[in-house]
């Protein structure tokens, strides 16, 4: 029983981390057809903003700063690079991979390669019964991830901006012809995706290690979710993130992490092998 509770608790928390990573990736692809391989580095930038500011401002303010600064940086990136890559999957993969290299090295050069420390704002853990313990922070990660997903969903469905986003996703030429400024939608969606990555980085920083190379595992995890959930579909992303998190935890707790990684990937490949449709699903 204790094992089961642990599996669920850890699984949801892990799923939350995957979710935050995958959401940014999936929205950006859905709206502008860009596969953003620099997503992990954007998360890293969010962590760095947190690491550098948390000693001077309060934690929530640092989170907001992460969102704002990385989103702002996203606007710059879009102007300088991303807009040349719209709707070109392969070019965007390579271009953003180059961007990832540049961001990583720039941080190493400007801030140094050493590991950085961020204190845990809410320490401690609570008991879930049957001897199972989980830390407050990992539960918080899960809750925040779900809130972000819900917020995205609401934005997409209930706001005008979201409506425009969906229009552009469905058919950007048609959207342009009915007067939607696709240029702006693309830019602000990219900024939103970056901002989300920034927040993700800020939130995982206290429980993990902040250093220039921290981004790649998040990217790989996000890709795993996206392979299964399809690109551009928020609801599916949420479901699959949690499923993957739970599966991974189940195998990791009962066996070990390495087996879990192999099992999860093999399972993913098998699931897809039995799906005859392409992975690209652009519905919200």
């Amino acid at each position, binding site marked *: 029983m204790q094992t089961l509770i642990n599996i669920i608790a*850890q699984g949801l928390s892990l799923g939350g981390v995957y979710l935050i990573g995958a959401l940014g990736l999936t929205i950006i692809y859905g709206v502008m057809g860009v596969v953003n391989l620099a997503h992990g580095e954007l998360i890293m930038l969010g962590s760095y903003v947190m690491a550098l500011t948390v000693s001077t401002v309060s934690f929530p303010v640092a989170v907001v700063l992460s969102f704002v600064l990385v989103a702002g940086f996203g606007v710059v990136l879009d102007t300088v690079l991303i807009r040349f890559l719209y709707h070109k999957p392969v070019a965007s993969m390579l271009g953003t991979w180059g961007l990832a290299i540049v961001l990583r090295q720039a941080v190493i050069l400007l801030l140094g390669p050493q590991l950085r420390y961020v204190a845990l704002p809410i*320490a401690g853990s609570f008991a879930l019964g049957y001897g199972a313990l989980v830390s407050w922070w990992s539960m918080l990660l899960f809750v925040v991830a779900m809130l972000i997903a819900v917020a995205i969903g609401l934005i997409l469905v209930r706001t005008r901006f979201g409506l425009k986003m969906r229009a552009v996703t469905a058919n950007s030429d048609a959207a342009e012809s009915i007067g939607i400024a696709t240029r702006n939608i693309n830019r602000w969606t990219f900024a939103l995706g970056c901002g989300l990555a920034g927040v993700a980085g800020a939130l995982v920083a206290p429980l993990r290690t902040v250093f220039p190379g921290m981004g790649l*595992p998040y990217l790989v995890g996000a890709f795993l979710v996206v392979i299964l959930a399809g690109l551009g579909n928020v609801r599916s992303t949420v479901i699959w993130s949690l499923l993957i998190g739970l599966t991974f935890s189940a195998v990791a707790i009962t066996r070990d992490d390495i087996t879990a990684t192999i099992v999860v990937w093999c399972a993913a490949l098998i699931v897809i092998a039995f799906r005859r449709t392409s992975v690209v699903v652009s519905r919200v």
Partner: protein
Amino acid sequence: MDHDNATRKDFLKAAGAVSLGGALLAACGSSSSGSSSEAPATSAAADTAAASAGGSTDTIKVGLLNALSGVLSITEKSIYDGSMLAIEQVNAAGGVNGRMLEPITEDYASDFTIAVQKAQKLLTEDKVAIVIGGYTSASRVAMIPTFQKNNALFFYGTYYEGLECDPNTFYGGATPNQFLVDYVPWILENLGKSIYIVGSDYLYPRTVSAIVQKLAKDNGGSIVGDQYFPLGTTDFGSVIADIGAKKPDVVFSNLVGDSTPAFYKQFRAAGYTPDKLPIAATVTTEVEVQAMGAENAAGNYMTSTYFQSLDNPANTAYVAAMKAKYGENTVTHMPQVGTYDAVWLFANAAAKIDGDITTEALSAALIGATYDENPEGQPITVLANHHCNHPSYVGKANADGQYDVVATFAPTDADPFPSVIVPENKRPTCPTPFKPQ
């Protein structure tokens, strides 16, 4: 894409190709970093015959091959810093018999295909007397074939798992038998009898784990768990949950790199404090402690041949020199000290050689070479099996992010194939005598 009469374009492209080829050739012809153009070599054997190394008569070239960018640079950059300090100090003290050391720095960017190339460059083009560097065992194993082919020596300064005895390599770091053999019984006596082992997934932690398991069983302890995590893992929820279920007395950590601070933080966040469940580690150096925050490390244990807090004159001078050169926040740690010592040992060995520093002469001179100002607290000497002697300590992390020494063990000679884990029929002759190719 089909243009039948794009003659001008054709011409420009062909011209471009030819000039590219010409430029490549020109670049190939001239050499890099100071030494003059290579004479055309009809047989490359002439270049790499067991001939003298080093640059002009004024300097001795030393190759420093480290990962200064990429994942490994987190730790390896500070290792490089240590070797540069040593070179400065050697030169300040008058060099080697009046000849200054000239460091040639190369970055293999955490990519072993580049490491092989750079090693080759240092040996065939720069003709360095020795290459010092590397950090992970994989980096060392990747580079060794190049050293063997080119008849050259490599000084590896980081502690590692042993089980190797390469004639072209000298090992400045400790082998497991030099600290584990005393550490495990100490743990069983002072922290508890049941151990849960966690480690990163590569050879060093697996070897250490095998040794720990054998030592524990021989000394009345028991192992309740043995888990490995791919390098770069930063989520430990599952194993922490399992630790909660298995209830060991102590967690033995062989986690490395960015996994370490993540684990300690998450472990603490899950409610485990060192008085309830201490962590005893082998790779949680001052670098990782700085990254996890002193409060997450405090109260946990670590074994090492070196701590920044060691109170001896050599170390006080060393730490002061590192801070003066690299900043107040500089952290000194075990692999860095090993590499620093390697440079000094090389310098002291080279000083004993009359004439050219050939590989044979250097290899012979290194055996028995010593360096007295070893920050570890005792002179370091190179043994016949190419490894060095080291003291070892147990440290307990304090609230300042440093380790207080709580136990000191008698120094042991390095044995890469300790009988405690290697069966008699598997022990090779070590050292294997140096044979020119």
